[in-house]
């Protein structure tokens, strides 16, 4: 061995080692760098030996973490040295240092080429090494190559034949050929065209006959890369792979030096089985049989032995064989054999095998239905949670999480809870989240769920996110049976000496709402509950104080008859916080104080919270999202990585996914009205500020994502479902006219050469009853919409998706709002990048009732085509309605209290599309008009009620407090916005009915009456009442003309 022996280098390293501290080291390094710099200035005087020495020193300094910003030129120049040692050093050092100073690299390129085509094999080796290095940072490479006037791809193309020649040349030594194989792999990754599939597939198959194991291993790596991209072309390699496997595993036909601890080249076995996993399946029964024979041998013939290295090697092969068996979807018998093996592994002494056993069991869960067999090992897996190795504990947690279902949830979650108190911090957050998700997904009963979450908060409060406790509150509110239990539990926890702030929040909330249910129990009088909650107030943060204030107000409300002492105490607190610096607290204090002086009226205002609408748990959603991420197989990811390397745009994309999407998700998280809805509005506002959030359409839509259903259709692969719509719309005369009427909207654009896909009017009508969907689509663009409506607020997001591989320019979107809507569209970017999607938030505020419709004037350029469309936006009257159901006792007094016109209007509507009563009721419900069945004694009549929100009513509500139960209030103290409707049908003639609408506001009554009439007369075809999948056959109606006239969109369009 003679490659070393540089005295100066050794001395320098010694000096560095002698340094007592970092400062000394830095001084020494600086001195050396100064020295090198001076010596390099006079390069001519340097001997090659000296140059080599200094360059090594530079690499050493670089490894220590110092920036070396000079001398690269010298390193590169060594490459072209005629003698081997300098050349070798030049190659090694350049490749390590070159990342930053790539400009110098182009100097080397010619030498590299010459070395490759040259005759000297050792030089060839070095040059091949260099290509690998160069290619390592090929984004830099391509810029260099541009400078050097050769395109990156061209370089790869021009070099590839040389490299291929080296690889298949029989005269070349194995040492060169194996490097050439890997080098070709590298070039292929950079530019797949370098390997001409037609010619290469045969060569590849020939290469697999290679006897030299080194070359064969490298070739196998190359094959893995090739088949992962295009397995079709390489079917001919499949039998060869099986043969290699047989040769190694069965015949052990292999030179001594490739036997590693008695195992015939485990690496080659592993790589071969990897390659086989890229073929979708193996059809040929003979091949399949012989492969399974080998696999069986591997599975059965491997034992855990004493020698660590032998163990590792044999199990490397074994685990790869397991993966292959899973991939091939073997017979059940073999599968259960695999699980049995894994069950054995997770109990062995050898930690590596335990680790991989658990990991592979988790993988097995995803692939096949062997859950029951895996469940038999539950006890052992739980034991692994206590393993001394955190890596193993993590895998055990993953596996437990994956295998949990209704049958074992109780055991597993309780195990997790127990483990939580001893787990290290690094794992607690994950543990808490997983326990919460499992508890929710598989809770056998709800009280158990409450127990689990409260325990969770108690044991690991810091790691319990708000989502988790919001969810508990939601469950408790929606389940009356649960309320006393939850309240009692919350009360119990408050007795503990030190509790986490999250626990204070959740207990205070629950006791405020349901504390009165405990009134008879000892220690649960309003006063006692108040004092125990109030004890916590000095220690909590402002967000909790606001919750506590609400709780006090609720306690006050529930203590009837009022307890003067308690009242005074609470009033004093409200008074105190009236001057709080926090606006939220201040407002609550002032409002609650004012309200609580109203005496009995307080009962109505602070009534119990209404039930929450059923929503999918934000937690589960989150978990599903991450699962989608992790479940992706390596092959897919590999490809994605390669793609991402070629486009920088994707980097931006990922960030915007991370920052842009979650806020939207957050909005849909369980909402607790008491949690200051202003905060949410602000965050929604911020969302709106971050306009033009870019997000790229991935080849795989983020399916678990909230926006998934929207993005899904946007992941454009040819024209989506539009065709079916058009077909169904051409059926009836009535619908035809509707289409005509609405077609006026975009009709002005005769110049448009672009035809929309699907029916615009139909899409609009569908969106009137749905909150998300596609608003418009043509061959170039798709506009999706997603809306959230809260009272008189609407938060819409427009998704502008470019379906093409070239950008859309001059994009313009203009909102033409009717007078009753305040609309604000965030900035729309002028260009939409290829295959990207832009999100534009749109805020809507409803000022007063009207049937007019807002129009979006949208235009863009594609190539030379200017496309302009005017689209109605589904911000229609019924979006500001919120369904309420009323009882007969409430309905009729109200009905009577509204005397007649203009508050109560009646009209006989003719030409109604005949609908069975049930279907009509469904239609009403879909417009947020709650039909109360059985209220009207006549079975042919329908009565419905709803609440309407506009800014004026909202203003009143705001005054009261955000905490107030709005619908109750709406009914009782602000009758202007509650609406009651009565429909009387004639069973003999279904085409006519008498409709009576009543509300506290004349305009509202009129507008709503007209709105409903429109809907009844021209029931849009887009709507399929959800509970009735079978559509009724449309019958043509004579009333289409007036319908067209009253169509607000058409009227507006006519004005335009």
């Amino acid at each position: 061995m003679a490659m070393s022996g540089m005295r100066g280098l050794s001395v320098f390293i010694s000096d560095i080692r002698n340094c007592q501290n970092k400062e000394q080291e830095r001084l020494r390094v600086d001195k050396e760098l100064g020295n090198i710099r001076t010596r390099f200035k006079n390069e001519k005087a340097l001997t090659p030996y000296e140059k080599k020495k200094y360059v090594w020193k530079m690499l050493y300094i670089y490894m220590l973490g110092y920036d070396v910003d000079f001398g690269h030129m010298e390193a590169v120049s060594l490459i072209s040295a005629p003698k081997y040692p300098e050349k070798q050093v030049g190659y090694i050092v350049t490749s390590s240092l070159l990342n930053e100073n790539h400009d110098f690299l182009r100097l080397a390129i010619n030498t590299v080429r010459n070395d490759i085509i040259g005759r000297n094999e050792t030089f060839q080796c070095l040059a091949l090494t260099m290509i690998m290095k160069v290619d390592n940072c090929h984004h830099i490479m391509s810029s260099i190559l541009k400078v050097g006037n050769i395109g990156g791809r061209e370089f790869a193309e021009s070099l590839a034949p040389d490299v291929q020649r080296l690889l298949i040349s029989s005269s070349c030594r194995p040492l060169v050929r194996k490097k050439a194989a890997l080098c070709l792999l590298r070039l292929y990754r950079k530019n797949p065209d370098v390997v001409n599939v037609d010619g290469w597939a045969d060569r590849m198959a020939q290469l697999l006959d290679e006897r030299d194991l080194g070359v064969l291993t490298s070739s196998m790596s190359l094959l893995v890369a090739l088949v992962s991209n295009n397995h079709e072309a390489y079917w001919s390699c499949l039998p060869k792979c099986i043969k290699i496997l047989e040769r190694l595993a069965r015949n052990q036909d292999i030179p001594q030096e490739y036997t590693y601890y008695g195992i015939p080249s485990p690496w080659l076995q592993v790589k071969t089985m990897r390659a086989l996993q890229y073929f979708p399946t193996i059809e040929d029964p003979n091949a399949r049989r012989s492969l399974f024979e080998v696999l069986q041998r591997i599975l059965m013939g491997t034992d855990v032995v004493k020698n660590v290295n032998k163990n590792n090697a044999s199990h490397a092969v074994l685990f790869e064989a397991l993966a292959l068996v899973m991939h091939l979807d073997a017979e059940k018998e073999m599968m259960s054999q695999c699980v049995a093996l894994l069950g054995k592994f997770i109990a062995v002494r050898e930690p590596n095998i335990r680790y991989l056993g658990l990991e592979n069991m988790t993988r097995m869960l995803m692939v096949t239905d062997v859950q029951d067999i895996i469940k038999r090992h539950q006890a052992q897996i739980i034991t692994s949670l206590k393993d001394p190795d955190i890596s193993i504990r993590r895998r055990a947690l993953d596996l437990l999480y994956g295998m949990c279902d209704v049958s074992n949830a109780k055991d597993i979650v309780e195990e997790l809870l127990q483990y939580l108190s001893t787990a290290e911090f690094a794992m607690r957050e994950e543990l808490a989240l997983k326990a919460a998700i499992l508890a929710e997904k598989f809770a056998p009963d709800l009280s158990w769920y409450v127990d689990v979450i409260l325990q969770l908060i108690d044991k690991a409060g810091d790691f319990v996110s708000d989502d988790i406790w919001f969810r508990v509150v939601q469950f408790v509110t929606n389940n009356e049976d649960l309320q006393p239990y939850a309240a009692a539990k919350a009360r119990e926890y408050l007795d503990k000496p030190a509790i986490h702030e999250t626990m204070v929040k959740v207990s205070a909330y629950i006791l405020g709402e349901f504390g009165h249910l405990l009134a008879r129990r000892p220690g649960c009088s309003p006063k006692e509950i108040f004092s125990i909650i109030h004890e916590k107030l000095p220690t909590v943060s402002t967000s909790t104080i606001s919750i506590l204030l609400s709780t006090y107000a609720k306690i006050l409300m529930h203590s009837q008859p009022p307890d003067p002492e308690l009242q005074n105490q609470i009033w004093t607190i409200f008074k105190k916080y009236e001057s709080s610096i926090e606006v939220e607290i201040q407002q609550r204090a002032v409002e609650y104080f004012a309200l609580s002086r109203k005496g009995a009226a307080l009962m109505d205002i602070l009534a119990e919270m209404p039930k929450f609408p059923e929503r999918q748990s934000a937690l589960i959603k989150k978990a599903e999202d991450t699962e989608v991420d992790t479940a992706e197989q390596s092959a897919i990811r590999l490809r994605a990585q390669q793609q991402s390397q070629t486009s920088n745009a994707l980097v931006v994309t990922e960030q915007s996914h991370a920052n842009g999407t979650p806020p939207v998700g957050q909005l849909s998280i369980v909402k607790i009205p008491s949690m200051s809805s202003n905060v949410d509005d602000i965050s929604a506002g911020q969302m709106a500020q971050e306009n033009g959030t870019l997000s790229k359409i991935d080849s795989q839509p983020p399916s678990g994502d909230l926006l998934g259903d929207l993005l899904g259709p946007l992941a454009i692969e040819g024209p989506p479902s539009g065709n079916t719509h058009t077909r169904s719309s051409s059926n009836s005369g009535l619908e035809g006219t509707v289409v005509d009427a609405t077609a006026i909207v975009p009709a002005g654009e005769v110049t448009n050469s672009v035809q929309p896909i699907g029916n615009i009017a139909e899409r609009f009508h569908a969106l009137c009853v749905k909150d998300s969907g596609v608003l418009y689509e043509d061959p170039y663009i798709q506009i999706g919409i997603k809306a959230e409506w809260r009272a008189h607020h609407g938060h819409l997001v427009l998704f502008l998706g470019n379906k093409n591989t070239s950008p859309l320019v001059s994009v313009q979107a203009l909102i033409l709002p009717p007078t009753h809507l305040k609309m604000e569209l965030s900035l729309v970017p002028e260009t939409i990048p290829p295959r990207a999607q832009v999100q534009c938030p749109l805020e809507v505020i409803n000022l007063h009732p009207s049937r007019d419709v807002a129009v979006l004037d949208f235009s863009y350029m594609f190539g030379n085509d200017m496309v302009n469309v005017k689209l109605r936006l589904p911000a229609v009257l019924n979006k500001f309605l919120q369904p309420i159901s009323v009882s007969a006792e409430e309905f009729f007094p109200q009905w009577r209290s509204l005397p007649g016109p203009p508050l109560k209007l009646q009209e006989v509507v003719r030409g109604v599309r005949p609908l069975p009563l049930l279907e009509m009721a469904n239609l009403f419900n879909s417009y947020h008009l709650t039909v109360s069945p059985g209220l009207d004694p006549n079975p042919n009549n329908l009565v419905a009620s709803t609440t309407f929100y506009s800014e004026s009513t909202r203003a009143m509500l705001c005054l009261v407090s955000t905490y107030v139960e709005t619908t109750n209030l709406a009914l009782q103290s602000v009758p202007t916005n509650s609406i009651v409707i009565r429909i009387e049908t004639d069973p003999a003639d279904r085409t006519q009915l008498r409709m009576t609408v009543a509300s506290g506001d004349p305009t509202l009554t009129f507008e709503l009456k007209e709105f409903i009439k429109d809907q009844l007369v021209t029931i849009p075809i887009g709507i399929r009442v959800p509970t009735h999948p079978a559509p009724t056959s449309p019958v043509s109606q004579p009333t289409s003309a007036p319908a067209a006239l009253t169509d607000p969109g058409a009227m507006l369009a006519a004005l335009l």
Partner: protein
Amino acid sequence: MIKAVLVMNTQGKPRLAKFYEFKPVEQQQEAIRNVFSVLCSRPENVSNFVDAESFFGPDSRLVYKHFATLYFVFIFDSSENELAMLDLIQVFVETLDKCFRNVCELDIVFNYSKMHTILDEIILGGQVLETSSTEVMKAIEEIARQYASTISACPTVMVSIKLIRHSSKYETKGLKQRPMQSILFQNLFQDGGRGKIISIKLPNSGVSAPNWYND
């Protein structure tokens, strides 16, 4: 593919850092620090796997082996088999051992360049190049011959210090942190002809170095 190969001592000093994916020097150093902070807190008799996604990004795995005062760390993605990577570390170490006969930390400190050369014969651009340590040795010897044919003009004898340990070095377990009991000089390789001693460093108090700057 393999993303990085790190060799560091039990005090966190890097002895070799090779990144097969581009990383700026600060990020390299940060990665080394992160890896060390995880490794140094791992007890004995645990697995050789560590979750690396937090500091090497998604789809990263890390295996390591602990020999005497050194950690050998491979970071790679899911296209590689974990145990096979562990075996490759073993091949790397065995090859170093063949080269240096009873390799110790000082060998690789002073023969930094040689370790690079050996690694380059095992891993090429993040792909496994050779798995037989015999074959690697052949390649290294060939390189050495190339050197010999050109450097005969400059003969030196490299003398380095051997730290002798007691247990067999092929075992991962059982050999960690044994105090180095004696020191001996070992003639490592000769370039032929006359040689002279160029550097000798005697660790003053065995392994219990007072601060992390003394290896």
